[in-house]
Structures are given as structure tokens and as C-alpha cells.
């Protein structure tokens, strides 16, 4: 069977929940219940999809790659949705973070806010994220990005105070310009290659002569597209919207933006540049500093420079922030730098064909697996920390370091959650963060990049520095007056603790996670399987006769 209905299950669940929460918006309690059930159902749908992908089911005889053709229009004419190990990994990460952030929101966001728009927006954002992870059509990717962004605009400006409107204005204008660029790149790619389907694009790029494609403009257009993804992921030099937006948004939304929405940019880079554009036939690049004839030979150094700059800028800026949210926002710029630099090693590995010890086989797989594990760690730990920041705000009434101090003695439950998540960010075994950092270092060593090792080391030291500072100023030391008078919100603390425990649990039982990451990396590099599973047809008539 070419079409697998289970692929659209998470998408439908999120969409139906979003609409239902709109319908019942008059009844606040009902709306909360519907929203929470929708969040649970989303986790269930994702679990079902992951189980189906991991059990080796597949379309067109390819194991582990499920495709769904919208309205049974054959690819590349209709829109294709594809769920493979890479999509499944990202969806799994989304499901965990989104459910806990939702549980946090229900207690955290004020009643009036929840009644008006919070729940529908939250689920529509989830729809956009899910669609982006599943689609195999670049214009459709644009549409899902817009669905996601449109909801996130409103969520960023949710409190609509002076600072929030200012931050949202910046965020909206920047992303609107980004969307126009994405449209330009997509239009250009369509006119040079004649297709929008990612599998078809990969197939045509591999054999440009017979499709009459000139590869050099494709490289240029893919670079324009890259800018858009870098903007979404918040990599230097496109990082400056991040702190203001994260600070303005309600804590659970910041957790989603940092934990999940940023990863959509990372996913798009992996999917398009490693699965699609890397498949292009060798071309004469003759650019300064570029060795090799593959598109990844061009993007490898670009990724490296941007990742390195992100690690340094994010880390250094995070060290002397005045409040928890700013510190976490700059920290997530630095942490995404780690992910991107792992992608740079992977790109180098693809170009040079470096080998790595088992179970990875090649530096390409190792680098991608490192990026994915690190993404998962960042999603769990940073979401937990943002939720912790929200819980501190709700209990103490401030997140400025000057007002804080001695939370550890006053609210031990929250402090434990914060501490575990912070340790995971630093990378202390047996937490997931340790494996994330370890894999990034491993990739750097196997890629033979001394500069990369040095940068990762610097980033790790900076992480320790700012995490220690946050802990010292906020949680240890003399109890401040505000902390003394705080009213602990135990429901919120529980959510933080659960996320921290997940990060711990995933670290302790790391084997299935690393297996999933390696499979996802192989799926990202397995362009052949991807094309075969999508099952491209030569003409619209299913009999293949044509006219």
C-alpha cells in the first residue's frame, strides 16, 4: 500500500484539538480538559507513528519510510507526507516537550488569557511544527512554517505589554522578511529544477543533464533558503531576535520555542541539505575555502563558522545576564551552536567519506546522530529550565537575579528540577546532556578538527560558567526578601521535575535513544530509500500511459 494513514495521525489530532478548543472557548474548564486530552492524544498518535516506523513498516517496499499521498495524487504531482526515522525522532521530542509545556500552561497562564486564545494557538503551533517535520514538499514546508509562525507571533505578544509588543514587532517583521526570502528561494528552485517534491528534487539533482538543470543556480538558491532556516534556528548572525522574543513570551511558550520550534530549523537543514541537496551531481564550485564538488562542501564550512560564532556569542553573552530568561535565551543560542557544529562535522564527513568506529560507521552518521541527541537534550533541558523560570516568576514574582537568592532552601522540589536540568545542559553523566556533548566531541575527534574540539571545549566551559552563576545567584546564598515571602506553586514544580526526570531517564536508558538517533542519521543520508519510498510517477495517469 502506497499510502499510510498513520502518517497524518499526529497532524489531524493537533488540528482537531485546535478547532475543538476554539469551539468550546466559552466553557473554560471544558476547554482545559479538551486541550489536555488533545495533548495526550497527540503523544499517543506520535507513539503509534514511531512504533510503526520503528517496526520496519514501509511504503514501496522500503523499510521504515512511510509515505502518505494527499488525496491519492501520485508523487510528485500531489503533496507527499513522509515519516521516516528522522521525522519520528523529531516528533517524539516534540510530543514529550509539548505535553509537559501544556500541563504547565494550564496552571500558569491566567484564566482570561486561556479563555481567549491560548489553547487554540498552542495547538495550531503544534500543527505547524508537526507538518514541517512530515512534509516532503518544499512549498508545503513554507505553508507549515507560516502556520507555526502565525501562532507563535500571537503567543510572543500574548501579554501585550510595552516590552512584549516591542519584541513581537521585531519578531514579526523579521520573520515576514524571512518568509519572502523563502518564497523567492522556492520559486527559483521550482523554475530551475521543475519540481517541488523533495524526493523528485533529489532525483533530478543527481542527474542534472537529463533534466536540463544547471546546478550552480541551485546552489545559490539553496543558500538563500539556508538563511531562512538559520533565522528559524536562531544561529549567529541571525540570532538577535531570540532574547527579546523568549523573554516576552509566556514561560511555557518560551519552552516550546526554544525546545521545539528552533529544532524545526535544524530539522529543515538536515532534511534539505543532507537528504536532498547533498544528492546533487558533482559540480565545479571553485569558491575560496571550499574543497570538494558537493553542495555540502560549500555548506560544511558555512555551518562550522555559524556554529562556532553561535557557541562563542551565546556562551559569552549568557554569562553576565541580569535575569533568568535572558540567560536561558543566550544559552540556547550557544547550545544550538553545538548542534550546528556537529552538522558541520557531518557535512565534512559526507564530502570526504571519513570513517568512524562502530556503531556509526562514518563521521557523517556520527555527526548527525550527535546533532540529534544534542537537540533532544537541549529540548528537554532547556524546556525544563524555561518552565522552572516561569515557576520562579509565579512563586516569587520576579526572575531578576537581584531579587532572587536562596530558592534551594525555600523550594527544594523546584530547585531539584532546575539542578538536574542544568546539569544535563552542562553534560554531567548519566544525564542525556553528557551523551550529547560526548557525541559532539567524538564527531570532532573523528573529523580530525582540532579547532572544533577547542570550540566545543570553550562552549562547555562557558556553559558551566553561566549555569553555575544562575545557580549561585538564584538558588544558593542568602534568602532574599522576595523568596522569603514566595508562595510555592507545587503543580508547576511537578512539571519541571517530570521533564528533568525524563532527561535523567533518557540518559540512564540511553541505548534505545542512540539507536534511534543513528537510524535517524542513516535515514537523513539514505536519499535512495527516500526517493524509492515516495514512489515517483512519470505521469498523472496511474497506469503510466501518459498523453
Amino acid at each position, binding site marked *: 500500500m502506497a499510502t499510510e494513514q498513520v502518517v497524518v495521525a499526529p497532524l489531524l489530532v493537533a488540528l482537531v484539538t485546535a478547532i475543538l478548543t476554539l469551539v468550546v472557548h466559552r466553557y473554560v474548564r471544558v476547554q482545559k480538559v479538551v486541550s489536555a486530552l488533545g495533548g495526550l492524544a497527540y503523544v499517543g498518535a506520535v507513539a503509534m507513528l514511531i512504533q510503526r516506523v520503528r517496526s520496519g513498516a514501509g511504503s514501496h517496499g522500503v523499510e521504515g519510510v512511510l509515505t502518505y499521498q494527499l488525496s491519492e495524487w501520485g508523487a510528485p504531482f500531489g503533496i507527499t507526507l513522509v515519516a521516516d526515522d528522522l521525522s519520528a525522532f523529531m516528533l517524539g521530542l516534540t510530543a514529550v516537550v509539548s505535553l509537559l509545556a501544556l500541563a504547565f500552561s494550564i496552571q500558569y497562564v491566567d484564566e482570561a488569557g486561556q479563555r481567549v486564545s491560548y489553547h487554540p494557538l498552542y495547538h495550531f503551533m503544534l500543527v505547524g511544527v508537526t507538518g514541517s517535520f512530515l512534509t516532503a514538499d518544499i*512549498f508545503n514546508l*513554507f*505553508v507549515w512554517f*507560516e502556520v507555526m509562525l*502565525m501562532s507563535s*507571533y*500571537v503567543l510572543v*505578544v500574548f501579554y*501585550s*505589554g*510595552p*516590552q512584549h*509588543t*516591542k519584541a*513581537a*514587532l521585531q519578531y*514579526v*517583521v523579521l520573520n*515576514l*522578511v524571512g*518568509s*519572502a*526570502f523563502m*518564497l*523567492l528561494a*522556492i*520559486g*527559483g528552485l*521550482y*523554475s530551475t529544477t521543475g519540481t*517541488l517534491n523533495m524526493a523528485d528534487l533529489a532525483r533530478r539533482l543527481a542527474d542534472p543533464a537529463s533534466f536540463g538543470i544547471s546546478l550552480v543556480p541551485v546552489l545559490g538558491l539553496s543558500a538563500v533558503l539556508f538563511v531562512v532556516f538559520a533565522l528559524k534556528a536562531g544561529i549567529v548572525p541571525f540570532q538577535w531576535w531570540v532574547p527579546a522574543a523568549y523573554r516576552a513570551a509566556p514561560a511555557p511558550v518560551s519552552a516550546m520555542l526554544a525546545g521545539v520550534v528552533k529544532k524545526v530549523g535544524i530539522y529543515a537543514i538536515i532534511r534539505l541539505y543532507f537528504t536532498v541537496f547533498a544528492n546533487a551531481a558533482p559540480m565545479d564550485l571553485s569558491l575560496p575555502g571550499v574543497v570538494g564538488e558537493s553542495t555540502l562542501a560549500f555548506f560544511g564550512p558555512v555551518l562550522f563558522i555559524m556554529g562556532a560564532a553561535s557557541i562563542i556569542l551565546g556562551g559569552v553573552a549568557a554569562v553576565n545576564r541580569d535575569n533568568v530568561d535572558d540567560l536561558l535565551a543566550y544559552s540556547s543560542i550557544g547550545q544550538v551552536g553545538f548542534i550546528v557544529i556537529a552538522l558541520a562535522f557531518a557535512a565534512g564527513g559526507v564530502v570526504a567519506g571519513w570513517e568512524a568506529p562502530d556503531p556509526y560507521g562514518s563521521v557523517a552518521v556520527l555527526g548527525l546522530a550527535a546533532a540529534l541527541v544534542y537537540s533532544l537534550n537541549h529540548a528537554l533541558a532547556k524546556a525544563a529550565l524555561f518552565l522552572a523560570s516561569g515557576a520562579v516568576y509565579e512563586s516569587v514574582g520576579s526572575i531578576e537575579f537581584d531579587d532572587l537568592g536562596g530558592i534551594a532552601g525555600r523550594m527544594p522540589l523546584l530547585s531539584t528540577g532546575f539542578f538536574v536540568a542544568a546539569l544535563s545542559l552542562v553534560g554531567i553523566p548519566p544525564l542525556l546532556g553528557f551523551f550529547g556533548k560526548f557525541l559532539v566531541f567524538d564527531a570532532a575527534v573523528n573529523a580530525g578538527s582540532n579547532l572544533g574540539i577547542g570550540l566545543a571545549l570553550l562552549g562547555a566551559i562557558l556553559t558551566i560558567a553561566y549555569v553555575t552563576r544562575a545557580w549561585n545567584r538564584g538558588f544558593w546564598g542568602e534568602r532574599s526578601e522576595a523568596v522569603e515571602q514566595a508562595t510555592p506553586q507545587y503543580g508547576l514544580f511537578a512539571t519541571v521535575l517530570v521533564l528533568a526526570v525524563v532527561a535523567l531517564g533518557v540518559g540512564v536508558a540511553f541505548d534505545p535513544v542512540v539507536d534511534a538517533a543513528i537510524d535517524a542519521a542513516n535515514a537523513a543520508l539514505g536519499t535512495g530509500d527516500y526517493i524509492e519510498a515516495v514512489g515517483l510517477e512519470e505521469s498523472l495517469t496511474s497506469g503510466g500511459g501518459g498523453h
Partner: protein
Amino acid sequence: MTEFVLALVLGLLFALGTFLVLRRDVVRVVWGVSIISQAANVYLVTMGLLDGTVPVLEGHGEGAGAVTDPLVQALVLTAIVIGFGTTAFALVLTYRVYEEHGTIDLLELGGETDGN
């Protein structure tokens, strides 16, 4: 000739949009963004080649000949709708910024301290 004129117009539209985005007045910035996105739409239509005939005519009567690509037109419709929504939101946001700050001058907005 058409291509040359179109390229010129597109270039001018993008230049105008960029010019407006760099203004101090928030309303002009929103105008600029919306002009850039409309220019992107026009660009997208031109990607489907302009010298063909209407797609539905294929197979009906003689001399239908080359067909203009209908796909990009469908894409542009989607993009226009999205652009409409986002522009409306950006304008509402501008109004909200004015309500909160009493100004829509970006320099004055930027000059405010983060404390409030």
C-alpha cells in the same frame, strides 16, 4: 521585452520594499514588508513562464500550443492569503505598539529602557 520590463519592475519593487523596511516609522516598515512579499509573489508568477496559453485549453481545439504553468499560480494564491493574514496582524500589532508606547517611531521605541 516583457521579461526585461518585469525584471525591472521586480527590482524596483524590492528596492522600494527594502527602503521602506529601513524607515523609522513602524507603519512604513509594515508597508515595506508587505511590498517585499508582494514582489516575491510577482516573482513567483513569472517563474511559470509567461508566453503560454491557459492550461484548460489543452486538448480543446487546435493551436493550444505551449501552456503556462498553472502550479505557480496556485502557489501564489496560497502565498497571497498568508500574506494577507500576516499583514493584517502586523498592522494590528503596530496599533497595539502605539497604544502601549504612545509612539511608532522606532528610534524612540528603541531608546526606551528595558525596565518598564
